[in-house]
């Protein structure tokens, strides 16, 4: 398990919630992804300052019937996959300061 993994949405993307899914397009190569409901929850919470473990505990395990270890492992796989495509940024340090001007993605 990777402790203190921070995740932030790249600014080089286009994204929009579509029902319970999220469409995300990479600005670098126009590749389109859709995130399912649970992935969308993680995407929404990826503010760069909240550790992934905390996002999973607070946003996923409270809403879905899933063991925390399993949820975290799946979340790590998801964010690593998205990071490989450049649409999510990963770091062992916070990526943005709390209260910064990062705007919430419109729903």
């Amino acid at each position, binding site marked *: 398990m990777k402790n203190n993994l921070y995740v932030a949405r790249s*600014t*080089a*993307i*286009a*994204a*929009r*919630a*579509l*029902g319970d*899914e999220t*469409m*995300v*397009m990479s*600005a670098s*190569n*126009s*590749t*389109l*992804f*859709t*995130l*399912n*409901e*649970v*992935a969308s929850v*993680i995407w929404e919470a990826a503010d760069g300052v909240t550790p992934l473990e905390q996002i999973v505990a607070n946003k*996923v395990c409270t809403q*879905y*019937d*899933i063991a925390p270890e*399993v*949820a975290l492992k*799946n*979340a790590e*796989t*998801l964010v690593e*996959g*998205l990071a490989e*495509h450049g649409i999510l940024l990963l770091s062992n340090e916070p990526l943005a300061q709390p209260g910064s001007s990062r*705007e919430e*993605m*419109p*729903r």
Partner: protein
Amino acid sequence: MSLVAEMAAKALRLNIPLSVQLDLTYRCNERCIHCYLDHDDHGEMTTAEIKDLLDQMAAAGVFYLTISGGEILMRRDFFEILEHARARTFCIKLKTNGVLIRKKEAARLRELGVESVQISVYSHRPEVHDAITKMPGSFRQSIAAVRLLREQGLPVTMANVLMTQNAADYRAVKALAAELDAQFFIDPTVTPMMDGDRSILKLNVDQAALEKVFRDEALVGNVEEFCAPPQGVDEDALDMLPCSAGHTACYVSPYGDVYPCVQFPLPSGNVRRTKFVDIWRDSPQLKEVRSITLREMPSCSQCAHGATCTRCPGLAYMEGNMRGPSSQDCEKSYARTGIPSENYKARHASPQPLQVLKLVQIQGLQPAAQNFSAKAPEGRAAVA
């Protein structure tokens, strides 16, 4: 079904305006002979109004945003608007003539993460292009812009509107696009002006030129398939929707007027008076457009081409009946297949002037919790 098609189908089910074209201005530094716009400024939306509209559109679920005009860079606040739009994470395509794009502008467009830029190029011959734009030097400037944008790594499409003046040039324009590492797009239809004036339709190429284009393998791929005779209309086809206009897409003019499409000037509301989402959901005009399936079209539902025709409901509307045929598309179906549509036969049996509307341009997975999926990516997305 492709991912893009899946998303469009979902947007349709959820009544979400997935795609919007927003024209920032009708002012332009060119005076193209085939242009459908009045270039005077009759009260464009202010920067603040456009930013508020962008916020509303993002909240309503708009993903694909085409920013067009007029010439978009005629607005001094263009980059301020673009920056605001990108902060709202729209997927943005720009349409421009490129004349005002220099190295600095190209670099800024790249920084802002624009998805693609479309630039109109009418000919590979400067004198022909410039005669169409009525702007000396415009060919050189537009091609310079294509080069600058490509140097920045931005995807560029060279759009070639086909008309009598340049009918012989499209292959050379396509070759020029390939040389510049740009995409090529050909549009064989000159459309009426938004005020209903049909005089510019005389610029349309004739049937022989259309037939040649539709049988050009380099453009259409499998010619036999593309030009195949129509298979008639079956029961499923009768429930088909004409196109995305008003269903998952709409158009907003520089004056805040909302239409089903830029080519479908049915006034459906104005964002200066009504919230965008309320117009989208409640406009009687948009509801009427959404109610029309092939079954509701008396002529087209009986036509062999009904299921495969490229019929544009906006052009039909401009002919006087949004449930009627679009004669320009009837001509294209005939040029493509050699089989006349019902409307084509009727019109050629007793030619009558088209009823012309007097239009007003301005006033004013269900996933189990264990599955955190991001669907497998596909190639470049086709913007609806």
